[in-house]
């Protein structure tokens, strides 16, 4: 597909692209947009089909001889299994309501990134191969046959969708294009064509419990490493419990919080919060990953990786599970976990041990979001806070796609932020809450080699951040997702370099007044807080909000 340009082609400057039907515009696979292919040994770990070495820039992708039959059979199986997929293939009237809602379309200007067009890549194969009208009338009925080029095009664009579901919000039929991508990726995985940025974390997670492949002692060491920083910056000693049987609560967070900057500061926030309230909880070095890149591979892989959470909760004998700041983890927890691996009858309905609040929304899956938990503690006056420690920050909040559109959590993080920060500014209405724009790198696309794609996808979000930066002087973009924390710094570096990124719990950690703390001239990053020494001496600190 991609090829070297001839000298004649190099001399040509395209000023206006051709006006042709999308099926006639060949897809050219370009570096900077795609992610590197999955390493064979990482495909083998899970016993997935056709592990092999290949490159998207080669003509030969190393497909098995019967790839076409396998693809169509896989599609048939999924059309029968998932009623939603069948409906989404049939009912789209191509009204275009979703067309301009995708961050990748808005940032790239590539019409094949309109959600309707991206789904059409698969839908056209469905029509051409599965419906009578398509089989007889072909293109007249919007159908086409499955060829290698069609497969390559599907592959290219399935990894230009972050499954954020913004498009589905605007579809009058409720078509969830993310589900089309999910199935599209499942089909791609029938030939070992996953990307390595997803496959390797999946393999690691399967073998060790977390995406990075941290072994138990390393996981523990990393958390302890953050405790050393807390000792330096806060002046207290924390000894977090690991794999403790009989604890009331199991805490699970994405491993990005354990090893990636700035997620580690969010983790320090969790540690301080739990210490502050004397929570009876435990970390697990086995259920050491809340995230689930299996969800970006195939649903059965997601199920296998998710199983460890309930299994570990059962082994440790906890009453319920508390979850950290993660994006897709919460879509899996909220919409899939109970049917994947539940119901968890051995767990109790989550109750906040300090306030007595019953988390009825988590009655079934038995897992509570850290922002819900923190908001409840603040509401009941259980936290001693000094929001002045965040006074130098002008904060805005990025609703991460999955906690907002996937589980409907809008108010809790905002309530927490407003109680730990004085300066909070919302981005424009059509870029937050249900209508939030994706960070541009979700669903396993947070690699480095596809940076151009990430920056395109990040544009609509960055555009809104730029607006509040210019208007209110916003300098901190907070969020509740580990992928956001990992990728938004790069997007900000390119689009709005004056703005930094943090987790909500980091802001909480900075504001918490810990018993026995020393003078805290620095924040959890070890950076000096401008004007804090003077301000603390002037007035009394705010307590029991």
């Amino acid at each position, binding site marked *: 597909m991609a090829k070297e340009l001839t000298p004649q082609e190099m001399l040509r400057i395209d000023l206006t692209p051709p006006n042709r039907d999308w099926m006639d515009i060949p897809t050219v696979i370009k570096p900077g947009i795609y992610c590197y292919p999955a390493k064979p040994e990482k495909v083998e770990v899970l016993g997935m089909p056709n592990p092999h070495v290949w490159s998207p820039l080669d003509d030969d992708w190393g497909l098995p001889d019967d790839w076409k039959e396998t693809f169509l059979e896989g599609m048939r199986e999924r059309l029968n299994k998932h009623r939603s997929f069948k409906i989404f293939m049939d009912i789209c009237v191509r009204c275009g309501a979703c067309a301009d809602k995708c961050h990748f379309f808005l940032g790239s200007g590539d019409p094949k990134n309109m959600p309707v067009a991206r789904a059409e890549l698969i839908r056209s194969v469905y029509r051409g191969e599965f419906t009578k009208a398509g089989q007889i009338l072909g293109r007249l009925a919007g159908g086409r046959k499955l060829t290698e080029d069609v497969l390559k095009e599907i592959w290219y664009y399935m990894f230009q969708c972050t499954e954020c579901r913004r498009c589905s919000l605007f579809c009058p039929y409720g078509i969830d294009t993310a589900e089309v991508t999910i199935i599209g990726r499942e089909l791609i995985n029938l030939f070992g064509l996953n990307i390595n940025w997803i496959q390797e974390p999946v393999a690691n997670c399967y073998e060790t419990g977390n995406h990075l492949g941290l072994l138990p002692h390393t996981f523990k060491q990393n958390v302890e490493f953050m405790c050393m920083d807390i000792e330096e910056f806060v002046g207290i000693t924390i000894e977090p419990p690991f794999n403790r049987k009989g604890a009331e609560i199991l805490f699970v967070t994405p491993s990005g919080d354990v090893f990636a900057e700035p997620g580690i500061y969010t983790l320090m926030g969790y540690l301080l919060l739990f210490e502050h309230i004397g929570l009876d909880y435990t970390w697990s070095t086995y259920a050491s990953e809340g995230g689930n890149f299996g969800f970006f591979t195939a649903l059965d892989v997601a199920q296998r990786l998710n199983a460890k959470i309930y299994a570990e909760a059962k082994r440790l004998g906890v009453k319920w599970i508390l979850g950290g700041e993660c994006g897709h983890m919460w879509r899996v927890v909220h919409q899939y976990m109970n049917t994947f691996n539940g119901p968890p009858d051995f767990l109790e309905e989550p109750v906040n041990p300090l306030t007595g609040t019953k988390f009825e929304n988590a009655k079934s899956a038995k897992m509570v979001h850290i922002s819900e938990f923190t908001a409840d503690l603040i509401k009941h006056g259980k936290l001693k806070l000094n929001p002045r420690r965040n006074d130098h920050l002008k904060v805005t909040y990025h609703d991460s796609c999955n906690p907002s559109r996937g589980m409907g959590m809008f108010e809790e993080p905002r309530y927490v932020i407003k109680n730990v920060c004085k300066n909070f500014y919302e981005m424009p209405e059509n870029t937050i809450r249900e209508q939030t724009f994706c960070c541009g790198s979700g669903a396993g696309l947070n690699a480095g080699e596809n940076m151009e794609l990430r920056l395109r996808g990040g544009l609509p979000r960055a555009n*809104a951040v730029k607006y509040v930066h210019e208007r209110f002087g916003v300098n901190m973009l907070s969020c509740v997702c580990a992928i956001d924390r990992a990728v938004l710094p790069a997007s900000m570096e390119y689009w709005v370099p004056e703005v930094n990124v943090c987790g909500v719990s980091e802001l909480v950690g900075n504001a918490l007044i810990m018993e026995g703390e020393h003078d805290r001239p620095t924040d959890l990053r070890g950076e000096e807080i401008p004007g804090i020494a003077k301000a603390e001496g002037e007035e009394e600190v705010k307590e029991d909000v």
Partner: protein
Amino acid sequence: MGRKLHKGLREILEQKKGPIVEKWRDQIHKSYPPETAQFLKREKNKFSNPIGSSIEETIWPLFDQLIGEADAVLTKKLLDNIVRVRAVQDFTPASAVQIIFALKPIIRKEIFSLVEKKGLVKEYLKFESEIDRFGLLAFDVFMECRERVWEIKRNDLLKRPYLLAGGMCPSYMMKRGIKHLEKLKKEITQH
């Protein structure tokens, strides 16, 4: 920066500013596929159409800079507004900055007969060289953006040193990566 434009020519350009800039905007839109061009033109909300709105917000003041006494900082900022996006999209460097040179045929078509009538051809040619200069400045901006993309790629890698660690302790590697990054930044500032 910039040279003072002949008063008579400037008057003509100011008079024809509306149709020139509108045609210029259409030309920039048309550098995208037809479906996208339609959308860029149609959607007026700044946040629902970041590319279209930044084009609209940029080209009018940029044209003013071109026919006035250009302010170097503002001109670069305006060029950045439209080139930064194109630097990460499916454009070759030539077609990314071509949008500046696209002004030439548009203006020629719009005012050249009048320019000839008023005997301002010599001044007009000098003005076209000014457009060329803006085009070259746009290329500077384009290259700065591309360099930035590579810096970001490098920083991203350095922030994730465990990828290169080959089994070393991630926390140690992470600290080392941050230190290395700081050292690099220092070196860059010193130079």
